């Protein structure tokens, strides 16, 4: 049944480079599987074909919307728990949080625990929990949306990632690790509450209530590090 069929040569509009016609089917057992085993047309011929289209493309990170300078600025603002720059977090992006979550998972991996799936699941649940609690508490004036909530929760995971790295050098089950956990959870909570209250137009009287919800979320993550 290996009926040979002829394919007309493919001609591109703006160049004279032609593809070779596909070869005849080689093996009789697979008549319909014929693929071009020859050398593919080189990429230089592509750029020569439509001049300027490849060089005109924006850089990959810019196309993906990842602004590394902004991520660095946001990161360094979180490193200082006492002074919170909320205006930097107006544009919510998810690449910084992704990076921090991967770092957290990496440090857990260095400790011998494979927690990537658990981190993903718990971050999702934590985001939904905070989103629900914050919007219900703030009532009419709460305008937190899920994207921004996830972005804030992810950025405030930076202290957790640092805690995970630091816990590699501390003996397990001692008092020091619990004390460190308390410090880092408080750091995360303070930054997260300050950002939430500043960004999502909530009154100051709800600060303590939102802080307790954030505290619960980050305590759960510190459990991953301790145990």
């Amino acid at each position, binding site marked *: 049944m290996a009926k040979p069929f002829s394919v007309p040569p493919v001609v591109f509009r703006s160049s004279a480079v032609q593809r070779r016609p596909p070869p005849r089917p080689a093996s009789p057992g697979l008549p319909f599987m014929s693929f071009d085993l020859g050398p593919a047309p080189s990429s230089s011929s592509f750029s020569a074909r439509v001049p300027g289209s490849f060089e005109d493309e924006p850089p990959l990170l810019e196309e993906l919307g990842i602004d590394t300078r902004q991520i660095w600025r946001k990161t360094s603002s979180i490193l200082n728990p006492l002074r919170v720059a909320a205006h930097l977090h107006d544009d919510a992006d998810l690449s910084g949080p992704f990076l921090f979550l991967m770092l957290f998972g990496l440090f857990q991996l260095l400790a011998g625990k494979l927690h990537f799936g658990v981190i993903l699941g718990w971050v999702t649940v934590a985001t939904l*929990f905070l989103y629900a609690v914050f919007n219900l508490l703030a009532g009419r004036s709460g305008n937190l949306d899920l994207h921004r909530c996830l972005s804030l929760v992810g950025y405030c995971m930076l202290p957790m990632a640092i805690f995970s790295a630091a816990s590699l050098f501390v003996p397990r089950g001692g008092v020091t690790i619990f004390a460190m956990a308390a410090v880092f959870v408080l750091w995360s909570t303070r930054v997260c509450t300050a950002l939430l209250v500043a960004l999502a137009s909530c009154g100051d009287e709800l600060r303590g209530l939102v802080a307790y919800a954030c505290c619960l979320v980050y305590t759960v993550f510190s459990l*991953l590090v301790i145990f």
Partner: protein
Amino acid sequence: MSLFLLLVRCCPQPSLHDRPSSLSLFLLLLCASSHLPPLPLFYSLFLLFRGGPNCFLDNPWPLPLLLLSLCASPLDMYDNLGNQAGMQGPTTNPPPNPFGNAFYGAGSGLIRGGLGAYGEKFLGSSSEFMQSNISRYFSNPQYYFQVNDQYVRNKLKVILFPFLHRGHWTRITEPVGGRLSYKPPVYDINAPDLYIPFMAFGTYIVIAGFSFTPEILSLQLTRGLAGWFMQVLLLKGLLYSLGSGEAPLLDMVSYGGYAFTGLSLTMLARLCWSYSYYFLMPWMSLCMGVFLVKTMKRVLFTEMRSYEKHSSRQHYLLLFMAIAQFPLFFWLGKVAAG
């Protein structure tokens, strides 16, 4: 539904524990009673068939999804019903709408609620038939979250030391739009709220994770939800047997959830000193019993007919409710040592 129960009973038990049938039964009851979207339910049932209760250890997704479905429907509702004041008392008839009638013959309330919840999420438009269905069972949840710091502190004092509450226990009413409604929790210490129960439940889960490994968190979540559900059943059953049972369901959910505050405190104390458990737990059960008796007495007072007030039957049932707190607290305090 009975077919499902039959399947659940007949499913093979590969693991050493013999709890999967009760767990899946509980899940079925929970989802059926609150009209959750069916997908997480089916997925969790599928997992249970395959692997027993330990399946949730490796794969904690179904339980958060279940919780999410529980939170999602009131959340979608709050911006639909936000223009109403905090309405208590008998719920009004839902406004007639063409979509509700069109879907009524389509299937059970489970599918209707599920389609409503998913339709809302995917299409992004507020669906009126879901609004009318949900408002028949839940009052406006926004009312229960109008709290502030001061209310939370005072309410915690009332819950943990109900003997020391010097004021009265009745809720303050105000006339709104021609009918009496209760003041929101910000203005009234005796009003129920949902912030404290949810935070206390979260604290209970987290502290349970602290005392043992984090893997049992999902099991503890299920156990906590079961306890909360039983508490709500108890309160609602009490209301039905003594009165007309017209108090809003979310009120009962709120009163039932206050148990977790004392429970979390006891578990926290147990982390520090293990013998404190033996005298703190009965003390907290007693406090919760007193709190519930005083609250439910007021709730029943407003609903019952005048010739039935102060009956001995009412007193015996309230006493039973207070005594039932003890086994409930001890069961919830027992961390599932997997």
